[in-house]
């Protein structure tokens, strides 16, 4: 008996210490080599950063809140948030401003996913499906670089995952511009000419991207290329898209089949979150207007001058919420103080301090943007697709390149005006065109780029002083500088 116990214990002591296996065992995660081999599924991560365009203080905020159409004013004790919204409006941002920090990582995430995808599938090149997928990955990569040079100017240009330098240097904006234009033009040929998906990379989408690049060629490279821009605008106009009859139709909740939209982000309240700008804009009680089960946050409003730029009869003015507000049952909404919920397009100041303005003024200042339909019972995420490229934009771009090349663009401008219920105008010049662009493309993330191209981004407006030098691009974010000493602002 004793002996057995002795032996057992000694055996245990000898055998058990033999177990020294420390390998990780994965259960709910997937190791790199066990991931799927399907190129179509593997493309998803390249598209992913698009989802964040309208959220996380990223791209949309940098395009619209830095410009003269929209603002998040400081409303008493609300929306100060360390000044992060006000600095965007006043062009007072720095490399630690949240929105500027968050954009960078998202677009490079897309770039690196594309690089990695391309190298994974290069060995299978030659099959049509694979070639097309690689071409699409390169076009998406070009799209992200387009956003990067548009927003940050000189940035690292990396086109390989495996051979990427550990700490890349920045490449001049112009060099990247020429590289991506070349990349796009080469890969245009490889796409399926008949595909008309509004979410995938398609031939029309690629032409649209090239048109945007050439349109801004002077900003990006120093040399304007209006003819090249026109060539690709024409290609887009020739792809079978048509204008909707109603100026607000491209933005309704079920806009996924809109013939006007070329490339969209397919937001959905259940399956593809990220479109919650209405939460930031609507008044606290607007949930009663729209039968919403969630309470909006009462922040963003339309800059008064922009609101006033619309003609009384302009159909697009219905894209604003202003005046007395009503519940879905048509009862006039009241503040608990007894005052009516009357949204006044006048915003008295960028910072409305509690001592200077009454609580009602602070709360109710500014018309609210509702260009995208808010359906009855809307949630905190909308189901409207958000267009990146839309035909009306290309009408106005066509007009612009015509004017810039000394021709007349009235017809294209008037088509858009007609639809909005406005009369024709003639001899449209660049200033008028810019105003027409503001009214038609409002809220869609174009304003900053337009103002820069028209040389007006640094101007003084409302509570914004003339910008300090160098405000046409954003600084490289602080976290990026800290991780890569080869970059600097």
């Amino acid at each position, binding site marked *: 008996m004793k002996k057995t*116990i*002795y032996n057992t214990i*000694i055996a*245990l*002591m000898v055998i*058990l*210490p033999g177990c*020294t296996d*420390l*390998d990780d*065992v*994965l259960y709910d995660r*997937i*190791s*790199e080599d066990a*991931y799927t081999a399907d190129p179509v*599924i593997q*493309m*998803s991560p390249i598209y992913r950063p698009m*989802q964040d365009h309208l959220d996380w203080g990223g791209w949309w905020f940098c395009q619209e809140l830095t410009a003269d159409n929209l603002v998040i004013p*400081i409303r*008493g*004790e*609300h929306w*100060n*948030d*360390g*000044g992060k919204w*006000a600095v965007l409006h006043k062009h007072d941002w720095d490399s630690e401003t949240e929105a500027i920090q968050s954009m*960078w*990582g998202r677009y*490079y*995430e897309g770039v*690196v*996913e594309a*690089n*990695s995808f391309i190298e994974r599938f290069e060995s299978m090149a030659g099959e049509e499906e694979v070639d097309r997928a690689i071409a699409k990955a390169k076009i998406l990569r070009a799209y992200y670089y387009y956003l990067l040079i548009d927003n940050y100017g000189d940035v*690292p240009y990396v086109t390989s*995952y495996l051979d990427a330098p*550990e*700490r*890349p240097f920045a490449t001049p904006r112009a060099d990247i511009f020429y590289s991506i234009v070349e990349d796009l033009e080469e890969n245009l040929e490889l796409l399926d000419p008949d595909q008309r*998906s509004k979410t*995938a*990379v398609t031939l029309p989408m690629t032409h649209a991207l090239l048109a945007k690049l050439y349109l801004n060629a002077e900003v990006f490279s120093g040399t304007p290329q209006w003819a090249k821009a026109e060539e690709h605008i024409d290609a887009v106009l020739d792809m079978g898209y048509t204008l909707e009859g109603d100026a607000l139709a491209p933005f309704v909740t079920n806009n996924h089949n809109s013939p006007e939209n070329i490339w969209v982000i397919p937001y959905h309240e*259940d399956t593809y*979150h990220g479109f919650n700008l209405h939460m930031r804009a609507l008044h*606290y009680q607007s*949930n009663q207007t729209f039968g919403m*089960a969630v*309470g909006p946050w*009462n922040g963003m409003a339309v800059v008064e001058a922009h609101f006033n730029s619309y003609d009384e009869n302009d159909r697009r003015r219905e894209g604003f919420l202003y005046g007395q507000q009503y519940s879905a049952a048509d009862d006039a909404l009241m503040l*608990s103080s007894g*005052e009516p919920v009357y949204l006044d397009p006048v915003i008295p100041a960028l910072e409305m*301090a*509690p*001592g200077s303005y009454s609580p009602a003024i602070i709360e109710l200042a500014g018309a609210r943007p509702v260009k995208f339909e808010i359906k009855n019972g809307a949630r905190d995420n909308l189901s409207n697709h958000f267009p990146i490229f839309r035909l009306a934009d290309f009408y106005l771009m066509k007009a612009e390149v015509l004017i810039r090349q000394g021709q007349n663009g009235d017809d294209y401008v008037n088509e858009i005006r007609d639809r909005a219920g406005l009369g024709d105008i003639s001899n449209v010049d660049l200033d008028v065109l810019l105003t027409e662009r503001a009214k038609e493309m409002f809220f869609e993330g174009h304003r900053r780029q337009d103002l820069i191209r028209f040389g007006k981004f640094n101007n003084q407006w409302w509570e914004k002083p003339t910008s300090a030098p160098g405000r046409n691009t954003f600084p490289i974010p602080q976290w*990026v500088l800290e*991780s*890569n000493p080869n970059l600097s602002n």
Partner: protein
Amino acid sequence: MVKKIARLSILLFMVMGLTTYGQTGSINGTVVDAATGETLPGASVLVQGTTTGSITDFDGRFEFSAPAGEHTIVASFVGYLQSARQITLAAGETVTLNFELTSDVQMLEEFIVIGYGVQRRSDMTGSVVNVSGADMNRGVLSDPIQGLQGKAAGVMITKPGGDPNAGFSVRVRGASSIATSTSPLYVVDGVPGVDPTTIAPDDIESFNVLKDASSAAIYGSRGANGVIIITTKRGVAGQRSQIDFNTFYSFDQVANRLDMLSADELRTFASDNNIAFNDAGASTDWQDEVFRTGASQNYNVSMSGSENNLSYRASVAHNIFTGVVRGSEKERTTARLNIDHRAFDERLIISSGLSGTFERNDYINYSGWGLNEVLYQAYSRNPTDPVYSEDGTLHEDTRGFNYRNPVGIIEDFYNKRDAKRYFGYLKGDLELFDGLVAGVNLAYTRNDHESFYFEPSKEGVINREGEGRKVYDNFESRLLETTLRYNTSFDIHTLEVLGGYSFQEDFFTGFRAQGRQPFLNVTGVHDLSIFQDINPGDIDSWKSSSRLISFFSRAIYNYDSKYYLTATIRRDGSSKFGIDNEWGWFPSASVMWNITNEDFLANNAIVNNLRLRAGFGITGNQEFGNYLGIQYYQSAGNSLNFETGEEAILFQFAHVANPNLKWEENMEINVGVDFGLFNDRISGSLEVFRKNTYDLLGQYSVPVPPNPVGRIWANVGEIQVEGIDLMLQAFPVDTRNFEWRTNVVFSTFSQQVVSLGNERFEWSRLTLGNVSGPGLVGTWTQVVQPGMDIGTWFMPEFAGFQTDGSFLFYTAAGGVTRYPEQAERRVVGSALPDFELGWSNYMNIYENWDVSFAFRGVFGHDVFNATKLIFGNPSTLPALNGLTVAVEEYENGLRDSPKVSSYYLEDGTFIRLDNLAVGYNFRNFNGISNIRLYFASNNVFTLTNYTGLDPEISFTGLSFGLDQFNVYPKTRTFTLGVNVSI
């Protein structure tokens, strides 16, 4: 019943005596405590070298027969020194012997538990604090660790507020980490990693805290935050059977309320200042509506004893804590069974323990300023709003963003958890030959947590779609340890050597299902099938595992009981570490000079104990997540396949691989002196330490490109903690009628960030202490930056008010500004206390009275009063309620929105009478050996200048000291209890 058994056994012994020997005499007498004169029931009296003898009855009397002749009669009792008498017994004669036993202070107090063994206190070389169960705080303990609060120098135990469901944060000698846990390792009955809440306070025999790295290094990569060893009570060989019953009932009251405006005060404010205001007509004190008198109950029954080679202790404890905020409650039942068996002449000792803890929690939300946060809603709610409308339904109104009736929140929400925690171990120690013992320890832990959450759908002013969620979260741990121990002494050398191997594997698994839009609210979370909005990500499950494999060894040597040396080494391998750093060494060494045993101090009239100690050790911290060193794809939620337009699931990298990922390394030097004067009438120990934690784990940025994600987990920074721990114990009065023991513990430390970068990774700083509230999203108040102390308040400095009532702050240029973003951030204070002081007192008066009380003070820390920042600002008056101070601020001209600045920083120094207990003992009462009735009070009073609810916020982690209207009110507790020992 018990008496009967005792009598029976006496009879049995008598019969045995009679049958064995023909010619006998009789021996009788009593056994009493030498100090108190109390009789000792259950003491054993034996003829030495035989089994002849008896156990004393309830009056301490014994009587038995023994053969005529010369005998040595030995009286013994647990916790007392043996006493022996020589007698000569003639046949037919009766000898009466009265034994006075002296309590064995040595035995009770002189052993401390160190990792994988025990050590005589006088042999101790490292820094270990021992607190016996008897010295624990008394009264209501919502967690057992509360019993140690203020008792051990350098062990800071805090809990902001009085939420029965909130745990205590425990920190040994300062923080030493950025991204990993700073909680110490708990070792329960020799098993590391056991949740200490699974132990009933009445079941605790002792706490032993391994404070310095030389003591904790035996736990290697888990020792960096210190180790708290908890030993539970067990049956002792030779012990009579004993039944204990403890119960108490206590009332909890909110100790301090916020001084909010009453309805009339708010009306006056509005009319005085001509501000339009919707007076809903009622006068509601919303704190009254959400607070209540809480109650706690405790029932604990235990039985213990020994039978032949078996000893046992079994206990069941049941606790109910009803929180002072309506809707918060905790109920906990703990059952524990410890059984030990000795065989082969005590050469084989098998010990085992089983415990089960069943806990139910009922939670409320109070951490933020959202729609469903009870405290924020109660404080901000307009006092003219009634609780219920005239039709009896809850009154709701829209006075602002996120405005909701807090009574409705309490009534509507169902937020509960059922926790079941099981723990068991089986240990065997076999003495192979003299001095060599082989041991095996097998342990198994399982914690099953089941959570329920339901918010009903609602229409009306508060329009909610409803939500329900059920979550299972399970943890499982398996441990196998084998040890070999060898003890020997020759001449004046004593040596003890230990070697061992340990294998531990942990699993985390879980499951969650949730949905929105319940078709009916009636069934709540119990029927998720009727939820009409369910998306793919609403069903989720997870599983991960980790492994820790170790080899360890220790040698303890002493020369002539004067010069001591302890050396340990542990080699730990963990699956959490990167493949290039899988194994780490954790060595330590400590020395001690017991000066008392030197000739020149022998029999010194004043100094009876003087020892100098010094130790050095390296420990690690690996309390971070699994898989941080490898790169893997993880599902990142729903997405769309842009190519096909179909719904898809996206997979992403969580972080970049780091094959060098390792533990955080903690290097500590500890020097101490222990002393005892006048036969330990005054004793104490003073220790000075410095610990440097290197390779701090953090999530660093890597360049994107080339990496697919910008995150990597890397070991980079360094923190240095320096401090002093002092403990003093004295017996100011020690007479038969009045015995007073007093303990003072003092600790102070500084903690500085030395670096946050290396040649590859760099953080310029971390911004922390985010204040949340309307318009305050993303504002921070603290910074972790090289050269600065952790806990530093770093924010705009208040420079007065502008004439229009705006705050002004200093700028870097020396001017002032009203824009916080243009202000210079300055060091304006520290949330870290200068020092902490604990003062515990234990008194025995006229034998039957016992009194204990304990003060605790925390000195010199600044608290940021964000509650005042929000509610002391008049800008939301009178639509929302505020503090009375808001009216004063208005009258003084404040007309600005809440802005973070040093204006809201306050001194948090406090002294608190943590607990007070008075007990009366009825000894030998109607056959019951002791009944103790007691009264106790916790948090009796607090002396502080702090104007918020409570200055004890939290002192752990990297960011602390922020009082943000999320402090569950601290309670004052009055307890009546009874302890019965049979």
